[in-house]
């Protein structure tokens, strides 16, 4: 009785002679093609001994090994003797290697139980909190050192960063704050019109932009634009061992890299926020003029009845804080980045998330504080 797979490039002929199964392989054995399996070849036969020959094999790759290995495994499990004596030395050696690697390959269990996961997450949270506060502390200390010795400060870097995060951000800040003004005006008009108080849309826009939206929207834009860029730059420098090179020279990364960026953001943010206020008010004015037929002069005069210099100051204080938050988040995440390309990507994402989170938290705290102070 013979099993012949004529249609396949890989052929197997198996014949019983007494209780010995003579298995003869031939043709082309390639992993990318369909091949006979040991189960099909064996069928219902239960030989006590299996002898293999590969004399007629024209070309083979690992798939031949896998067939022979499956047969060998079957023999082992069923107490049959696998006779590989007729196989070429090379194939026998590979079969031995395959059997050895089969034995030693034990999957690694990476699963963790719930308690361990919670524990690790908690520890992670604590260490992140500590890292953040010590980083802020370090920034303050090195800022104090720089104040004592301003010549050590990297003014040139600071000016380049100012240009990057300030002047270069003007187009996107203009667009976004103008549109925020437009949106607020439409939303306000919807409500105020019902009471015939169209003109009060000026108060709404003025107050909202100057106290809240100018600083907030600029902060969010810079978190995405500048915070992410800082994290990516510093993360990349860390991956390239540039930060290590600074540290081994005794130059603290905070003084050299972080302070110029923080100062740049701290100076540029309030300027950008003031600019955003103006553009937002302009957007509101445009809608008031077009939709509510309120002249710009009337809008301006009405707005000045409620918006005071104190409101502008409140906005500027917020803007400075948001700027520092964006800078600290970006630089911290960059310095904490893993030393790999993926680490740099994660640092940039994390910088944006951290910055926006803390901007919102700080804004809420300011709302309470200003209420107490009466600003």
């Amino acid at each position, binding site marked *: 009785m013979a099993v012949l797979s004529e249609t396949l490039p890989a052929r197997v002929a198996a014949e019983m002679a007494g209780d010995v199964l003579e298995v003869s392989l031939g043709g082309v054995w390639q992993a990318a093609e369909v091949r006979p399996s040991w189960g099909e070849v064996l069928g219902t036969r239960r030989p006590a001994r299996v002898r293999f020959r590969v004399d007629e094999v024209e070309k083979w790759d690992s798939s031949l090994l896998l067939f022979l290995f499956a047969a060998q495994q079957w023999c082992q499990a069923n107490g049959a003797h696998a006779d590989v004596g007729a196989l070429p030395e090379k194939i026998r050696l590979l079969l031995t290697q395959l059997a050895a*690697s089969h034995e030693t390959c034990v999957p690694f269990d990476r699963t963790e139980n719930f308690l361990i996961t919670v524990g690790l997450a908690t520890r992670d949270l604590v260490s992140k909190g500590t890292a953040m506060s010590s980083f802020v502390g370090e920034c303050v200390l090195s800022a104090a050192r720089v104040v004592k010795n301003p010549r050590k400060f990297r003014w040139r870097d600071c000016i380049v960063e100012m240009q990057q995060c300030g002047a270069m951000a003007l187009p996107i800040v203009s667009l976004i704050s103008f549109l925020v003004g437009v949106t607020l005006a439409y939303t306000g008009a919807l409500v105020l019109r019902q009471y015939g108080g169209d003109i009060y849309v000026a108060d709404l826009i003025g107050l909202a932009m100057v106290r809240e939206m100018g600083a907030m929207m600029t902060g969010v834009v810079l978190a995405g634009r500048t915070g992410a860029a800082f994290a990516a730059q510093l993360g990349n420098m860390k991956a390239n061992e540039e930060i290590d090179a600074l540290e081994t020279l005794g130059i603290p990364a905070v003084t050299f890299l972080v302070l110029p960026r923080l100062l740049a953001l701290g100076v540029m943010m309030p300027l950008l926020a003031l600019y955003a206020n103006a553009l937002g008010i302009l957007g509101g004015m445009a809608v008031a003029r077009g939709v509510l037929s309120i002249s710009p002069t009337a809008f301006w005069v009405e707005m000045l009845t409620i918006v005071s210099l104190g409101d502008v100051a409140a906005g500027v204080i917020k803007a400075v804080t948001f700027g520092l938050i964006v800078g600290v988040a970006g630089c911290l995440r960059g310095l904490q980045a893993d030393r790999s390309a993926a680490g740099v990507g994660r640092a940039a994402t994390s910088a944006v998330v951290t910055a926006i989170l803390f901007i919102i938290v700080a804004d809420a705290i300011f709302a309470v504080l200003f209420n107490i102070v009466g600003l």
Partner: protein
Amino acid sequence: MIDPTPGPATVPAIEASRLTCGYDGTVVLKDVSFAVRPGEIFFVIGGSGCGKSTLLRNLIGIETPMTGVVKYFDRVFAENDAAARRALLQTFGVLYQSGALWSSLTLRQNVALPLEEYTRLTPGEIQELVALKLSQVGLSGFEDYYPSEISGGMKKRAGLARALALDPAILFLDEPSAGLDPITSRRLDELILEIRGMFGTTIVVVSHELASIFSIADRVIMLERAAQGIIAEGKPRELAADSRDPRVIEFLHRGDLPAPGVAGGAASGQ
């Protein structure tokens, strides 16, 4: 692991004819021709910036030569036939300089990916083969580690296991021993010899490690930056002994030069 019967012995494994390559309009290599015999360990050597890596990138099909053609066992990269291109790529194994393991996958998944992509093996069979390939490069027990958790030498070996996954007919190795300690680097050389001995694989190595060149290369071509091409071709020992080209002598006898500051002492490098 394709059995070393790749057609008539006269067909070279790789035949490059009048290859000109470079990038962005800058020519790095001009009119380069050479042939690699089946089962040969062929080294491309030369100083930094001489175009070794450019040549390799052209050979493995990542970049297209500006002019000229490369034949692999008489087959070429067909320009508009994606299926033929894939079929040819399947017969290559490439070890990149950094190992280039996919960082989000474990070693097991790294080696398994080409098998899953190109073969009709069952998942169980793939696992068996992955274990075999990793044990052949001495990484048994590290199957479920991520690339970031292993050393540089191990990454290279894992990269080699991945390059071997599809039983390539031609194996390309880019600076396999760069950045490795002498012992690890020698083990890698032994492994390369073993692979050739067992599977008859044609192996093209880009390297400037003198120790490897002298211990495992059957034949080398030496590239040079100013010449924009091959300045020497032959067996490394013969080149070292017979070449009169000062550039070749300087490169191959680096080990013989007295160490800086050591008067008269000649290190017996080879």
